[in-house]
């Protein structure tokens, strides 16, 4: 199932300290006319491939900054131009929820969104609104959004971004995340900082490993209390033989992803577009079939072939890693992706030092 990472706006009402969006001088927003073209092209793709479905992820920036007209237009275009294929378009949204209004609930329902992805941070000064990154105000609005979702029986899960400040008391932090969502449903990702780091938020891969390593025994002991906590629950699923890999570990994102930006620019994903690494042209000029078959995608398959016979040859974690995200492997000089990433050590150390001894599983 191809995933469309749809970024209709780069604008955001928040100023999270680690987020690139904040520094954009002229954040762009998509024209409604382009939205229409995208639905027409999705319909054509789905008609050509009757077995296929689209996962259509509304991303940003902050997607709720789009006016009501934009969502209304999406609903209308889907009805008008995807009359026969709309059941094969599965909408999802990643939003900070701070702008959620009752009318959005109606849009979500019409688009069939019954669970929302969001982001949560209980440490002050990291996610916030305004120049002072006001976290109190942010969380006030965030919880208002959560209440609105819950009152309308819409589920939610969240991303927690692990920064240097998270390392101060991982256990207190973990309990706060787990208590907020008693039935689980969150993932802890390492912060990615590639430029300056004025707030000293960046962490090394080993710090991330030890952060996870501190929490893993706690999670493992009580895993039926907090079943869906990633990356732990996915690792267990994989160890038990059920495939559960995110794009970074799947080795197959080359076959599955399309990013569409505010001006219709197509790329592999949000990161590849932000870093200007891979362009698949523009949806204004190309069909989704053409974009999905773009010859540039070959380099992902070639990378897999290369790694299997070189860097990752005989690695027992290959099935759950596949050399990591190609973008992290990009070499500016060589202009290729043909190497494993710096996360390799992280994964192997975490699994060998914490995961396998504690669980008794072995890859």
């Amino acid at each position, binding site marked *: 199932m191809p995933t469309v990472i749809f970024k209709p706006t780069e604008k955001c009402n928040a100023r999270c300290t680690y987020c690139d969006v904040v520094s954009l001088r002229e954040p762009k927003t998509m024209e409604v006319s382009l939205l229409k073209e995208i639905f027409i092209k999705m319909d054509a793709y789905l008609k050509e491939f009757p077995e296929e479905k689209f996962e259509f992820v509304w991303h940003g920036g902050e997607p709720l900054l789009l006016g009501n007209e934009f969502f209304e237009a999406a609903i209308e275009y889907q009805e008008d131009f995807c009359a026969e294929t709309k059941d094969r378009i599965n909408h999802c949204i990643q939003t900070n929820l701070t702008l959620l209004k009752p009318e959005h609930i109606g849009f979500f329902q019409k688009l069939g969104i019954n669970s929302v992805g969001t982001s949560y941070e*209980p*440490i*002050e000064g990291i996610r916030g609104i305004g120049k002072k990154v006001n*976290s*109190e105000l942010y*969380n*006030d609005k965030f*919880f208002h959004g*959560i*209440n609105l979702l819950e*009152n309308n029986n819409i589920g939610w899960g969240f991303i927690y971004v692990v920064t240097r400040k998270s390392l101060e*008391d991982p*256990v*207190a*932090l973990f*309990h*706060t995340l787990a*208590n*907020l969502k*008693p*039935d*689980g449903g969150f993932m802890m990702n390492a912060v990615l900082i590639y430029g300056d780091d004025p707030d000293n938020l960046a962490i090394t891969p080993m710090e991330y490993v030890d952060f996870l390593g501190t929490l893993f025994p706690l999670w493992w002991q*009580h895993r*039926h*209390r907090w*079943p869906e906590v990633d990356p732990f629950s996915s690792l267990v699923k994989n160890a038990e033989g059920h495939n559960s890999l995110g794009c970074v570990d799947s080795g197959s994102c080359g076959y599955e992803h399309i990013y569409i930006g505010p001006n219709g620019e197509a790329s592999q994903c949000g990161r590849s577009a932000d870093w200007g690494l891979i362009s698949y042209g523009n949806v204004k000029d190309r069909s989704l079939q053409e974009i999905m078959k773009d010859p540039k995608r070959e380099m992902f398959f070639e990378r897999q072939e290369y790694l299997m016979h070189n860097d990752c040859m005989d690695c027992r974690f290959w099935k759950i890693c596949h050399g990591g995200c190609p973008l992290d492997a990009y070499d500016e000089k060589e202009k290729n992706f043909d190497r494993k990433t710096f996360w390799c050590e992280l994964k192997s150390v975490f699994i060998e030092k914490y995961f396998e001894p504690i669980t008794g599983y072995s890859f």
Partner: protein
Amino acid sequence: MNKMKHILVCEDNEELIRKFSFEAIVVKTKNPEHVGHIGRVVEETNKVHCIELTIEDNLSGLNPLDDWKEVPLHIKAPRMGHFLDFVRVRHLLAPLSVRVFLNSGYEETYTDLQLMSSLGINCGLYFDENPINWKECTDLMDFVVYPKVPRATVEPFHYIITEYQPKETINFSGVYFNNPEKYLHIDKNENVALTAENLTAGKYLFNGVEQIQNIAENKAYKAYFQTWKKKFHKISACSACPAWRICGGFFENRLESNPGCREAFSELIDAADLHYNNKEKENEKQPQLCQL
């Protein structure tokens, strides 16, 4: 008639009680002589959920009356009192549908509750401004959750252990008729409040019993169930507590003056987990019989 089927908690006031019909009611009284009578008044057009009798003297000085047999009863006494006197009361309590609560502020309460439970009297701890002896409380919890022989229940621990679901947050205030999901508090002027404390503090939802039927739309009522999220705006003692989902911050206002809840309740949640898992395993083990 209230559509959400809240149980109404009110004072021992016949005039007020006669204004209700078809309701389940908890009546709070301090008068032992009144228990049977008020029970009969409620039953005229309503249903007694429980009569809560608060006494100032020790339990051992109590003289249970014959007509108490007719009603489910909670007795709140500060302490148990002298054992030999209690033995006399115990015989009189035994045939009743009664649960006895003792005050957490007395050293001997914790062992007295173990004794009462062993002697077959359902009982419990109640908490007021008095301190809690967390060490004794933990021993009492152990006594409740790892019984060597069958015993009577001790609240709120029995409730927590039996109601615990790994992926949910539970509120044990219902043991004290103080959980707004299930109970509403009303005074003689028909002021309606979410909790006993709110009623005492004059924090009313509205005035007039007839309004209870629209409570599901009441803003303050709905907002109440979201107030816990305030604790998650930042990392707080309760947000970061392993026992949050069985406690919900019940002891929050004594965290500084009387700390120890976190350790005690963390042990309790582990025990609840164990109990839950054992129950699951036992269910799995049950042989499948054909339907007769």
